[in-house]
């Protein structure tokens, strides 16, 4: 691997690590309602919003109510967005002749669900489907609100572990208001300004026809890109303004914007580990989670980077007469980011539950493309989605602790909370959801005509990988697609919607129920017989559990997808 790439990765992770403590602390202060610098500006706004919506900030919700609010909020967002998309053609500013993809009911529903679940899976191309109004009022607003809802869920989960002998997990409305006002809005504003400076457009102009150097006519799409660009990453949504997402020069014009956008994906979920450690009163616990996530992130970077630096053996065989050093697999990658920036984008977006890819993962070598796939299959636990990534890894940690706790001869507990029958049942249900939804839908797609119709360019091993990629991306609320699958069909619009809903609400509600189980308990004091979780040994065991639990579910399908393709390619 080349030194500049390694240096880029090192700088990236170093900056993330440096931001974890201040950002995590800030998040903790915000959700605890403590004093922050922005208070003089935002408290009045907050009070106004509370009064406007009749929110009683002192009201506490049990998990059922919290889950109900979370689900209803998602449902309301979905319905509003659906209506907007369905009626966009009769609303203002919709006369563009370039909007060629009709927003059919299934596409509109899929898109609405997708944005309300932070998946932002796009079965359409933005510039050929969406009016500026839809982009701004619909999609951009959902980027904020859905992101904030995820953060609220994460905070409620932490409270479950922090609190004792209560059923109350906080107030959903207060949490999303604070997440939006104190976290997402100011950071998006700041990020948006930098992007505009780097050349990202923020206009409502008509698409511009130009004549290229080759003398051909080309239409350059325009729009308020900068407004959407930063929040799509910050909220771990990822739905691009344009079809090719962050590979588009208007979305992501320079290596600096690429770096910043990747940072925006990772920094909040990474910092959330510190928020957790701080609120639980044991910062080390947060750091160990951050360490595990970072180790896995780095492993993915190095593995994917190493594979992509090699040549495609078939192409190498063709050009073997010309002896040259390997140039790497550049197919599907933007030359302005190179292999290094593209791989960083692939790893950050696949781990960060964000679909804003900047290169075509479909064109990666089989094992290179397998890395983002595996990242998602592991359950979005490597930083993961905003707020949701934390509980995803903690639930795997609970599985690991159940076994580790037994192996030290005590009834298992996590942070002083017992892992009993009720807790194991919820964890089991959570763990079961992924393989159930992803494998069954993938199997359904490969045996039905509707499913197979989506495979317009590939078949066999690679086709299987494309379909698997689509469903895990939907279920993980990631939203990136392995280009090559034509997903705008009734079959895929409906099945991916189902995967997105279970991935978001199914897992989210189970996580809240688990948090409530923990909240009811007393936090048992830590003794020398308790198993310390903030240790290198336990971190190692956690990583092993992550791979074994994930690997056991998906090894066979991976063997028939990318592994088989790799073996065939290198023969």
């Amino acid at each position, binding site marked *: 691997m080349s030194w500049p790439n390694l240096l880029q990765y090192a700088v990236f992770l170093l900056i993330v690590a440096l931001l974890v403590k201040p950002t995590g602390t800030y998040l903790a202060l915000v959700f605890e309602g403590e004093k922050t610098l922005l208070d003089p500006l935002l408290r009045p706004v907050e009070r106004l919003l509370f009064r406007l919506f009749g929110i009683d900030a002192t009201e506490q919700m049990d998990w059922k109510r919290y889950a109900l609010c979370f689900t209803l909020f998602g449902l309301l967002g979905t319905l509003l967005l659906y209506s907007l998309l369905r009626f966009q053609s009769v609303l203002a500013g919709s006369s563009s002749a370039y909007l060629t993809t009709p927003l059919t009911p299934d596409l509109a529903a899929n898109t609405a669900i997708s944005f309300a679940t932070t998946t932002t899976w796009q079965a359409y191309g933005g510039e050929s489907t969406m009016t500026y109004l839809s982009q701004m009022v619909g999609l951009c607003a959902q980027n904020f609100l859905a992101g904030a809802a995820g953060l609220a869920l994460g905070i409620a989960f932490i409270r479950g572990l922090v609190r004792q002998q209560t059923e109350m997990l906080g107030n959903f409305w207060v949490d999303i208001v604070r997440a939006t006002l104190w976290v997402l809005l100011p950071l998006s504003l700041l990020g948006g300004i930098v992007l505009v400076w780097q050349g990202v457009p923020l206009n409502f102009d008509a698409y511009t026809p130009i004549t290229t150097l080759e003398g051909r006519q080309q239409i350059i799409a325009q729009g308020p890109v900068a407004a959407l660009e930063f929040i799509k990453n910050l909220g771990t949504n990822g739905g691009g303004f344009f079809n090719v997402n962050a590979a588009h020069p208007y979305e992501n014009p320079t290596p600096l914007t690429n770096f910043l956008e990747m940072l925006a994906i990772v920094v909040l979920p990474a910092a959330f580990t510190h928020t957790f450690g701080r609120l639980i009163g044991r910062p080390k616990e947060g750091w160990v989670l951050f360490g595990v996530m970072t180790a896995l992130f780095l492993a993915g970077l190095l593995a994917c980077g190493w594979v992509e630096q090699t040549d495609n053996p078939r192409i190498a065989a063709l050009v073997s007469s010309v002896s040259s050093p390997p140039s790497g697999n550049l197919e599907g990658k933007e030359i302005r980011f190179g292999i290094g920036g593209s791989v960083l984008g692939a790893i950050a977006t696949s781990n960060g539950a964000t679909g804003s890819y900047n290169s075509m993962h479909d064109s990666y070598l089989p094992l290179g493309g397998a890395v983002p796939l595996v990242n998602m299959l592991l359950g979005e636990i490597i930083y993961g989605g905003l707020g949701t990534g934390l509980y995803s890894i903690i639930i795997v940690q609970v599985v690991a602790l159940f076994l580790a706790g037994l192996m030290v001869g005590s009834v298992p507990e996590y942070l002083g909370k017992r892992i009993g029958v009720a807790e194991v049942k919820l964890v089991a249900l959570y763990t079961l959801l992924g393989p159930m939804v992803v494998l069954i839908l993938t199997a359904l797609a490969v045996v039905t005509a509707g499913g197979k119709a989506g495979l317009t360019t590939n078949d066999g091993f690679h086709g*299987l990988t494309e379909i698997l990629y689509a469903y895990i991306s939907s279920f993980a609320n990631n939203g990136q697609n392995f280009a090559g699958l034509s997903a705008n069909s009734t079959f895929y619009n409906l099945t991916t919607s189902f995967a997105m809903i279970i991935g978001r609400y199914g897992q989210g509600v189970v996580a809240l129920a688990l948090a409530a189980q923990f909240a009811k308990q007393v936090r048992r004091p830590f003794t020398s*017989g308790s*198993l310390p979780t903030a240790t290198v*040994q336990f971190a190692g065991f956690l990583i092993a559990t992550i791979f074994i639990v994930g690997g056991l579910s998906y090894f066979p399908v991976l063997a028939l997808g990318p592994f088989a393709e790799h073996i065939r390619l290198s023969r």
Partner: protein
Amino acid sequence: MQTSTKPNPLKTPESSKLQRRKVDGTGIYRRAIAESFVKLNPLTLYKNPVMFVVLVGTLVTFALTINPDLFGSQPGTRLINGLITGILFVTILFANFAEAVAEGRGKAQADALRRTKQDTLARRILPGGQKTEEVSSTQLRKGDFVRVIAGDLIPGDGEVLEGVASVDESAITGESAPVIKEPGSDVASTVTGGTRILSDSLVLRITSNPGEGFIDRMIALVEGAKRQKTPNEIALTVLLAVLTEIFLIVVATLPPFANFVGAPVSIATLIALLVALIPTTIGGLLSAIGIAGMDRVAQFNVIATSGKAVEAAGDIGTLILDKTGTITLGNRLADEFIPVGGHNGRELASVARAASMFDDTPEGKSVVKLAVSQGATNGYNLDGAESVQFTAQTRMSGTDLSNGVVLRKGAVDAIKRYVVDQGGETPPDLDAATERVSLLGGTPLAVCEGKEIFGVIYLKDIVKPGIRQRFEELRRMGIKTIMLTGDNRVTASVIAAEAGVDEFIAEATPEDKIRVIKENQAQGKLVAMTGDGTNDAPALAQADVGVAMNSGTQAAKEAANMVDLDSDPTKLLDVVTIGKQLLITRGALTTFSIANDVSKYFAIIPAMFSAAGIGALNVMGLTSPNSAILSALIFNALIIPALIPLALKGVEFKPLSANQLLTRNILIYGVGGLIVPFICIKLIDIVVTAIGLA
């Protein structure tokens, strides 16, 4: 099992003589083999989700053996389907065998107990009190009065009302030395049905109806007839069930994928993969581990009323111990004479000796012994002297000589009052002497002749040898020890420091016990305690693990969830170890079972999809697809009986810190679980190929 091989420093001389209850092994295995087939009944197998799935799989492959094209034309032959069926069937039998062996050991114990439970003739005392009638022991009811005389089997559990007799309780305790039974005493006044009276006679009031007695309950317990799954066992079963479900999904979705990439697979192979993946190892051994845990407790002569109690013992955070008899040897011994009021040591020794002449307690004897060694003179004529017994009211004892001289020894304030009442004075240096003894953690006894106090005897509490080290181990396991004693603070603190307990409560009342238990439980800790008296019963019931001494009262035994037949309070520490072993064994074998799946994948997947050209994943270099699948399945079956000894014996528990323990067990069972099957499957493959099976 570490505790059995290492001499236990805490064991009293009597109990260390005691052999662990021996179980006759030959019959168990024969019976277990038969039981393995009986347990194939799907209605009982249903309770074990993992094994039930194997049974269903076996039936399907059996059908495929008879008609290989049952589900349409498929790759795979009748021979290979038959072999798979056979291996799967044996897998279930092995799992059943493991459970049957564990149960068999309990049954063997129950049989031994049942032999003691014979119908005997009882002499029931008729109303009026003088006449008796002979009835069968089965006709006795609670509240009946019976007389037993030397040589009789005691017909039922009862309370001694009259008489003093020696009773042989070896049938339940295994201890051959007879015990004295007499009325009035809290501890020595209960007798158990099935034990034998050796001398004299007793009048008893029967306290249980036939079939509800102590031995009956013990039989039911060791037999495991009413065994219920413990919470942790249920939680683990849930986890194993969900793993099984995940693998069901994985395997069920494979045919579509396989057909899609053009590498179809046979149903029999899919079932082979499913069985190899689902956690059959732990699924097959789980109940054996639980039963064996109770059995190991029983081998220590402790009867647990439920597996839950044993499991809780492994998880206790606080241990409440009585000082006397548990931390210290039951008796305090005279260590020093401190003369006061101008008397010298020899005078004091002489008075103390004479005052203790009739005192048969170990304390009294130790005073005489010390006095003689310090040159006590026979200055008192003991002919015709009378003994004055200790009572709770006077709190002193002594000797009245025939010449009218009165000698007393007793609690310092009691002696003081006694002397002052007679017009005597307390010497000015008495308080200093008393305080000195207290500061040393001893018990001061004042000695007087008439109205003159001669001095103070320093009675020293002897901390049991080795107990400090034992508490050290407990602390490393994260268990807090609290000592309860009726002594004053000063005395208690000295003993506490000497024994190395974490906390102590001086001048404790029975209410204190409950309070301490509740306080610790409120912090989310499990609390264990031992007790024998009736006033311990509420605390025993409140504690998560209450161990009653068999010598204790019926009330205590009923409130507790364990009964120690040897009445050795320090045995609680062994029970804690067994509880921990139980949990560790479960965790270790589950980890091992799951880790095994990695190698099974590498054996079966490349074999299964050889048509897809993924032979490069065959890292073990197994001969052929069929031999790979058979080898993985054979390993899967054989590992169950191979691990039965470990399941029954329990994983060794070392008192290390949690982190060290985790590292150790991950290395053995996690990393071991990854590596061992790679080697074994390869070896089995060589054998399978050599004998031409596939």
